[in-house]
Each structure stands twice: as C-alpha cells, then as structure tokens.
C-alpha cells in the first residue's frame, strides 16, 4: 500500500511540474500554427482522459462519445447564437445535459456486454448525428456559424490570439487529469477496476456494478461535453460532420488506447504523440490530396497497436502498466 501512496504522490508532483512547463511554453513558441497544434493536443488529451474513465477504468468500451462532444458543442453554440447566453453557462449546461443523457442511455445499454454494447454506443451516436444533420433549427447539415462579438473572456471569444484558448485547454486537461487521479484512489476507482476485471465477481462482493457504470458514464460524458463546448468556441464554426461522426469517437479513444488504456498517463502520452503527428503529416504531406498522410497515419496505428498492445506507457515503467495500480 505504501508504494501505491508514494506512486500517487509522485504522479501529482510530475503532473504539477508538467503543467508549469506547459504554461511556460507559449513564451518561447510564438508560431500560431504550432500553438494551434498544442491546443488540439491538450484538448484531445483531456477528451481521451474523459473517455478513459469509462472505457479504460470501468472497461465499458464506448465508441459513441462523439454524441456527448457534439451535445456540448451544440448546446453552447445554440444558446449563444439564439439566446445570447454566455458560453460558460452553455458549457456547464451542455455538460449537465450530456451527463443526464448518458445516464438515460446507460439504463438500457449497460445490460449489454461485449460487442453488443460497443455497437449500441456506435449506433446511438450515429442516430444523434443523423438527427442533428436533419434538424433545421440547429442549422442541419450546414451547422452553426458562431458570430464574432469581440474578444473577451466573458464571451470566451478570441480572434487575435490563440493563447487564451491554450490556457483554457491546459486547465481543462489538468482538471480532467486531476479528476482521474482523484477517482483512481476513491471507492469509485476500485469499483470500476473490479467491474472491468470481473463484473460477476464484483457483484458478488457487494459492488453495485450497474451504479458504478452509471457513475463512470456521467463523469465521462460531462467532461467530454465540456471539451465539445470548448471546441465550438475555438473553431467558432460547428456542423454535424465535424463534431459528431463515428470517426471522431474513435479519435477520442485512440490516444488512451495507444498510450495505455486504463492508466493515468496513457491518454496524455498518446495525445502528445498522436495529435502533432496527425496534424504535421496532414499539413506537410497531405496537401497532395492523394492520401499519403492517411497511409502513414494508418500504418503507425497498426504498428503501435500490434507492437505494444498494452500501450506505449509500458516503455516507461518496469512493471506492466496495466497492473501498476493494483500493487
């Protein structure tokens, strides 16, 4: 138990150090293009962290998280453009709506297991995508163009600089990390890992499996929606294709899986490697329009998932990453 406490303290110190370093980076990196990539990296790290709570710790593989992301983005954008509600309230509102919807959807879906569950999550998100695609009030396929009302923190709009977005993304990423860190040692964290390893055994030992899954889903959906709201403000234009597709659900899970599923640092590591790689290949060799970037990207995913099935995090620790927590 002692080493567990030590490890947790070490994680916290490491995270604080990394956060301070990340906060200083913009003083040295002035290039807007690079800053853009950094914002996206932090956002994906946070989103993947959120996905990891349900998919990694609790073992409920959801490939429909684009639904919550889209709900967060749309709630914020709609409230702002139609009613002038400040994005901050929209962000919270989107989070609450997503969490409630996750609970409502969890009620029937958490009885399903294995592939049936995964496909149900995909299908539900796809229904959401199609509904938004045909919902005229929300701009249907054209989406919503968020009007520029001047730079301010209150309206969470910044046209001249990307730095405010960078710092928000950093805080968001730290919060997501900290929530995961905190939950890891709470009774929920232990319940989730028990549910993941063997739901039947967990149930017999008094873990209410169903409630544990519901809790994980609500936290995960809430955080994902915050990410969606942030994204809407960041790009100031959303449409169903850009925030709600199946591809997007996979992209949220990918950093966690490549970095180390069900681990504290996996999503961060995965995002730091994956997102810059995606963006750089896209802009440097994707311009030909002939899919070379896709070839590389696909090949890297295949190679990593075959070579390091436990995630890249395994390279850094002597013990297998997936077992680190239980010891």
């Amino acid at each position: 138990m002692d080493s567990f406490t030590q490890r947790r303290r070490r994680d916290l110190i490491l995270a604080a150090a990394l956060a301070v370093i990340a906060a200083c980076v913009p003083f040295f990196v002035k290039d807007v293009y690079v800053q853009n990539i950094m914002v996206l990296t932090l956002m994906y790290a946070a989103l993947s962290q959120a996905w990891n709570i349900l998919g990694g710790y609790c073992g409920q593989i959801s490939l429909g998280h684009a639904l919550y992301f889209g709900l967060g983005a749309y709630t914020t954008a709609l409230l702002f453009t139609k009613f002038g509600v400040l994005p901050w309230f929209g962000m919270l509102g989107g989070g609450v709506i997503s969490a409630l919807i996750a609970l409502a959807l969890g009620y029937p879906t958490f009885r399903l297991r294995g592939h049936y569950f995964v496909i149900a999550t995909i299908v539900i998100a796809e229904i959401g995508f199609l509904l938004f695609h045909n919902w005229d009030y929300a701009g249907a396929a054209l989406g919503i163009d968020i009007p520029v009302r001047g730079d301010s923190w209150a309206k969470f709009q910044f046209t001249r600089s990307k730095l405010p977005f960078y710092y928000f993304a950093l805080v968001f990423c730290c919060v997501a990390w900290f929530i995961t860190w905190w939950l890891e040692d709470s009774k929920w964290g232990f319940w989730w890992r028990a549910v993941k390893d063997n739901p039947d055994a967990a149930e017999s030992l008094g873990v209410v499996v169903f409630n544990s899954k519901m809790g994980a889903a609500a936290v995960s959906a809430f955080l994902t929606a915050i990410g969606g709201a942030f994204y809407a403000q960041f790009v100031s234009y959303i449409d169903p294709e850009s925030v709600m597709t199946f591809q997007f659900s996979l992209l949220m899970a990918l950093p966690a899986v490549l970095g180390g599923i069900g681990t504290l640092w996996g999503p961060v590591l995965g995002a730091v490697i994956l997102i810059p790689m995606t963006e750089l290949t896209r802009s440097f060799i994707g311009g030909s329009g002939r899919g070379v970037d896709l070839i590389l990207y696909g090949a890297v995913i295949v190679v990593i998932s075959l070579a390091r099935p436990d995630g890249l995090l395994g390279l850094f620790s002597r013990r297998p990453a997936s077992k680190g927590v239980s010891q």
Partner: protein
Amino acid sequence: MGLLYGLLAVGLALIFGLMDVTNFAHGEFLMLAMYLTFFLFMFWAVDPLLSIPLVAAGMFVFGAVIYLVIIRFAMRAKANIGMVQIFATFGLAILMRGLAQFFFTPDYRSIPASFLGGKTISIFGVFLPVPQLVGALISILAFGALYFFMKKTDFGRALEATREDAGAVALVGIDKNKVFALGWGLGSALIGLAGGVMAIFFYIYPDVGASFALIAYVTVALGGFGSVFGAFAGGIIVGLVEATTAMILPPSLKSVGIYAVYLLVVFVRPRGLFGSI
C-alpha cells in the same frame, strides 16, 4: 438490397462472429472488391458478372494474407485484446483508404455499360432492376453453400471448435492459424461476391466502404454473434426496415430505422436474434 446486406453481413459474421475478431476494415475490403471489379472491366473488359468469381478468389487470398500478416499478431495480445483488434483493423482501414486514394485517386467511378447494368425485368407487373435481382440470387446461393459448409464439412466444424477452445483443438492436431487464415479468406471472398455485385450499381470511391460497414456490423449483431443464419436473417430484416423507413421519414434519415430496430432487439434480447455468444 436486404439480401445483399445479408451477404455482406455473412462475410463479416464469419470473421466477426465465428472467430470473435472485430474487423473495422470490413468496409475497406468491400471497397477493394469493388475496385477489383472495376479494373477488371476497364482493362480487360471482363463483365462484372463474369468477374465476380475472380474477385472472390482474389479477395480470398487477400483476406488470408491480412490474417497472417496483421490479425494473427493482434490476437496474440494478452490485455484488452478487443481494443487491440479494433484499433489494428481501424488503422488498416485508414491505411487502405489512403492507398486507394493514392493509387486509384479519389474520383467517383462507375462501370459504364455492363451486361446487366440498368436493365429491368417485369415480374407480375412489378419492375425490378436486374443487377439487384442477380445479387439477391447470388446471395441466396452463397448463403446456402456457406451454411452447408459450416455445418457439414470438417473445416466448418474445425472453425467453430477453434474459436471455442484454441488450446484443445491444437491437441487434436488442428493448426489454429491455418484454420483462421482460411476463415478470413472465406469471409473476404464473400465480401468479394458482394463487392462484385455492388460495383454494378454503386459509385466506386475510396470511402465507399464506410457507408456500408456500420450497417454490416449492426446486421451481424442484430442476427446475433456466432450465427451464420442470424446474419443472413439480420440482413433481410435490415433491408426491409430500411425500405420501410425510407417511406416514412426523409431519405437522409433512413438508417435511423435500422439503428432503432437494433437497439430495440438487443434491449429485449441482449444476444441478438439468433446469437449464441
């Protein structure tokens, strides 16, 4: 259309359901089969109807090779094997799409004048497009052959046994890799059949597979994993539901009906209609 979904789903069912391997590159296999048909037609003027067996054979080899080169290793993972398979095949899907863009360009293509293309036939006053009818006929034949194959031959039984317990079958002298490679080949050959037929009346482009892949997964799950018959029945149901939804809702929402039916079925019966796992 339902029968074609059935055929597509049976190919996937064989890989996904019977061998318990998630294949997210299924749609890209279909895309490849459609391109094969297209190029056979363009360069050697082989009519799609004749090239279907050739495409199926080509896809058989392709599927077996993919298993030996990639999937075999994905199945070796100890932890979170499901995710490894999902993302290895997802990576493969992106890779194949990229390669298709590179070599075939992203242009939409179609087979201009095939023997069957655009013809209709009148049965009791109802006009039906011939290519779809031929597709349906091929689907039924292929399904019958596969059903017989799985239930009556040694190989079919070996395949089922290997999924159940790979260690035990090794003891009786069955090589797991050989059986699964053949299974992948067979599954891919079925996709080849479907692709050959579909190339006649669908546009061919690098992303074409994505639109069918999800429906194929839903079909397999609807019918229930581990059941070839279930996948076929699922295909027919999906086809009917799609046609019905298209009459009630705007065409862009036609898939919603399929998804809703899937959810209803699994909420009532968590193993799909005929599933055993």
